[in-house]
């Protein structure tokens, strides 16, 4: 269910982004602005996640805006995005089934129904299908 992460990068950009460490997630990550993330997919798409609940808190249902650009930094339009996730240490999934309900702008998608019900390390897998291509990106976050 949770494939090995080998091509995942996570980096800090500007004020609104935080570092997501793949090796040792800081136990204090929830104390900073734990709401905006950026990861790259296996095929090199850039995925920016903006939580509309900032910082992310447990037990509160909320939405994310997901912005995807291709390798040439152009918005990835009309993509099909699926999100699943869980806690690798606890062997369970998300308590909800979040879904993309709208492409609010070209390459910018509204993901509704996100909720986390435990503190600790979460792993989110985005599957992106566009024009016959299938791609994955993995985001780790510490709540």
């Amino acid at each position, binding site marked *: 269910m949770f494939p090995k992460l080998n091509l995942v990068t996570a980096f800090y950009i500007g004020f609104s982004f935080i570092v997501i460490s793949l090796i040792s997630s800081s136990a204090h990550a929830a104390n900073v602005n734990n709401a905006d993330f950026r990861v790259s997919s296996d095929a090199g798409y850039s995925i920016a996640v903006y939580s509309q609940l900032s910082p992310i808190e447990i037990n509160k249902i909320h939405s994310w805006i997901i912005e995807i650009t291709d390798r040439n930094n152009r918005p990835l339009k009309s993509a099909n995005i699926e999100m699943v996730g869980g806690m690798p240490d*606890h062997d369970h999934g998300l308590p909800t089934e979040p879904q993309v309900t709208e492409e609010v702008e070209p390459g910018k998608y509204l993901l509704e*129904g996100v909720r986390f*019900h435990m503190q600790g390390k979460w792993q989110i897998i985005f599957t992106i299908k566009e024009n016959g291509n299938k791609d994955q990106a993995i985001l780790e976050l510490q709540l």
Partner: protein
Amino acid sequence: MKKILVSIIAAAISLSSLSYFAWNNFSFSNTNEWSAEELRLIQSLSLAELPALSTDPSNRLANDSRALDLGYRLFFDTRLSSNSQVSCSSCHRPELMFTDGLPLAIGIDIGPRHTPSLVGTAYSPWFYWDGRKDSQWAQALAPLEARHEHESDRVSIIRLLAEDALLKNSYESAFGSLPVLESLPDSASPLGTDAQQQAWQDIESNQQAAISGAFANVGKALAAYQRLILPGRTRFDRYAAELAADKEMGETETLNSIEIAGLKLFIGQGQCINCHNGPLFTNHEFHNTGVLAIAGQLPPMGRYDGIRTARKDPFNCLGEFSDAIEGDCTELRFARDENDVVGAQKTPTLRNVSLTAPYMHGGQIKTLAEVMVHYNEAPTSMLSHNEAKPLELRAVELKQLEAFMETLSGPLATSSKWLSAP
């Protein structure tokens, strides 16, 4: 020589027994220091972190004083039952933190589930042990028509409102006119006996909608009252406040060293905080923790069935009797229904837990001490899998956890005038 050998063996046995006894029963932890992460977790459980109750988009009168007045009267009114002896407060007894002290609820008859506390439930997105209802008002309707609870029906209840001047006035000031009842049978419901169901089918659909709408309003009034049932500050919350002011503080008059050791386990090795998190000590979610099936019943499907029932419920957030728009109903629209919720039951609050025995969805476990043993052993689930893993805590540590549970009780933050019948 033989004698000496026997003595040595005897000494070795007694020494190892003594060591085992000591290991199992004496505390070795130093509880005078909290890490930054522990301090953060302790504050996350404090009642001071509980936000003010937000509105309920599905119930526009959730915070309305007229609806509250009606709901308060109805909550204690035994006329809402077939034998005029059962009210909501028969099982949700204010003096027992709105529980009944019984393994299984007893209304008109013995029910299939343990009565959960109502304290703080207005914060929950889901109701019933299996989450088959998605609002407090929709929940309040089901017991009124359940055969083992009130065994009443929606037409009888609307009739009662119409015939009692005080209730009629209270209802109509909040919700407007009651539906016209002339030409209707005395008793009818889509959920009742065969005769009641037949009588219901004989009613015209626009009249059915008017009756069900008024019935939904009864639930909304009951919810307006139940929203006031909120937890009050406990010894734990005072300790959290003291700790927020002085992070170096260890044992105090507020919590003793055993209780503090229990708190440390609660947020650490005991893993209790995984599910019993936040200021209400619940994540409002559903988990399979390998509790034995209720005597005489098959192991329940739990949340797997609950979410399917909630989606079909005409009184759910998306239904015609809800005041919400689709965008408000995110919990229902994006709820998870996969196989991993088979056998999962709702995490109850631990606030006032020492006052609300017995425990679990069927009241299967009598005491808190036995609950600690249950989670320490994490037995195999009869259906699907137990999410919890054995904790391997020592006997003394289970006692410390139990002692910590005792610090979570305190008087409700609800004015005493709402805690007894009008």
